[in-house]
């Protein structure tokens, strides 16, 4: 019963951490530097009642969800091309690595000018964060493909396209998902930073505006919601991985 032991440990640690926080907050007695638990939950309830939090979380979540799909799809397509075609690799690699190293926050204004301040721009921005880790790991997966399996398929009459579809692509799927898992965290951080930076609707804006007025209990209340958004996204990726990579010995073991 590893799960039971895990959740027991986690609950105990959570309670311990909350108690220590409360003790420290009372000793420090400064609501701005370290608000008490009661104040944080009060802020959370206030935010929920006014509907601000739900609306902001929905804004951020929908941009993340769609961005994950768009960026993931683009990453798989271009990564696969780079993996199987040397010409595509030569042509695209410099841009991929240059953009991967670019602080994408710098591109926020440009992306929003191209795609608008609404959902389109935000999705495009998330996709930009997601696409590179997926592209890089997909291309590695497609390139490393098992030569012996490809030869076996060829022996049974598979042409180049069929080998890509039936051998190279499935082989690359575990790589695709390790890229996607990495991308989820990057996307969340990227979007929040962009929202703070641009003062655009979403959890980032809430954080920025309450932070500016030193309403620490509100900032912390919003931060408590971020893991929920992250788990929602990561859970989707995990479910998809379980379905697609069902055949993998490691997947069967868990």
């Amino acid at each position, binding site marked *: 019963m590893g799960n039971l032991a895990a959740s027991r440990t986690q609950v105990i640690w959570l309670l311990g951490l909350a108690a220590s926080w409360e003790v420290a907050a009372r000793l420090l007695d400064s609501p701005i530097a370290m608000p008490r638990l009661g104040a944080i939950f009060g802020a959370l309830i206030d935010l929920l009642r006014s509907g601000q939090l739900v609306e902001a979380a929905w804004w951020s979540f929908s941009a993340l969800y769609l961005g994950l799909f768009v960026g993931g799809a683009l990453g798989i397509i271009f990564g696969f091309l780079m993996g199987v075609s040397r010409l595509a690799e030569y042509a695209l690699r410099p841009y991929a690595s240059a953009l991967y190293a670019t602080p994408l926050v710098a591109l926020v204004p440009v992306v929003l000018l191209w795609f608008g301040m609404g959902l389109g721009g935000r999705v495009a921005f998330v996709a930009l964060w997601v696409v590179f880790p997926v592209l890089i790991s997909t291309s590695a997966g497609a390139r490393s493909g098992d030569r012996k399996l490809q*030869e*076996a*398929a*060829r*022996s*049974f009459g598979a042409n180049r396209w069929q080998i890509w579809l039936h051998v190279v692509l499935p082989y690359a799927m575990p790589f695709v998902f390790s890229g996607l898992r990495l991308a989820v965290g990057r996307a969340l951080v990227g979007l929040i930073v962009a929202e703070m930076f641009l003062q655009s609707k979403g959890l980032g804006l809430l954080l920025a505006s309450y932070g500016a007025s030193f309403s620490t209990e509100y900032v912390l209340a919003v931060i408590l919601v971020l893991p929920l958004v992250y788990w929602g996204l990561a859970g989707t990726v995990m479910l998809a991985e379980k379905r697609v990579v069902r*055949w993998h010995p490691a997947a069967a073991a868990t």
Partner: protein
Amino acid sequence: MGTVEVRDISKAFVKRMGRDVQTIHALDRVNLTVREGEFVSIVGPSGCGKTTLLRIIDGLILPDEGEVCINGHVVREPGRDRAMVFQDFGLLPWKTVTENIRFALQMRKIPGDHSEIVRRHVELVGLKGFEHHYPHELSGGMQQRVGIARALTIDPEVLLMDEPFAALDAQMREVLQAELLKIWEQTAKTIIFITHSIDEAVYLSDRVVVLSQRPGQVRETVRVDLPQPRWSYPVRKEPRFWELREYVWELIRESVLVLSAEADGQ
């Protein structure tokens, strides 16, 4: 149908190790004729080009010189008249047993009811009850049964087998050898079988072709005059079996000695 003629095949590979460019002559003017329905094994010291020869016959690679003809047609690429069984099984890990076998039917565009053809071959190799297992859920012996079923399912005239039982333990190997003989009896395929096991070659084949060390040439062809079907009696207890084994081993041993003398000299 199912005659294989290998005519004056030569093949060299260029190997690059840093700045060193080395040409390796794998095969040197190999000639071999296999009659319809015949079971021929190819043995030889390791690295003598056995697998290269088989890949050329399958059409996966082309020879530098010479040609392979199946029923009088020159081989230029893999074709429907041949099917290969691989040493490491060559099964797609993301496809179940049924899907792996069906894959060959789809690639070869075989007409007819695929489900029915797959079912028949699953039964033929004794995989009933494992249709929906993934390869990693099966033992090596079971995986190679899938490999054999996949090859037979497209009804080739020539079955090419590249050390198919080398990765299996000794008991499983003997079980599958006997089963292969039964399948051969039922289907009357021409079989070309690569192995490094002299015991296996003598037990299974009508003829054993002994290749020399690299560059591989046919050193001698040994006719195995033990009666078929060999799965039906204890062949390995026959004095003649031991004589033939000894004889083939002597042929290979000379090549191995030459090789190790070369290695010592370097």
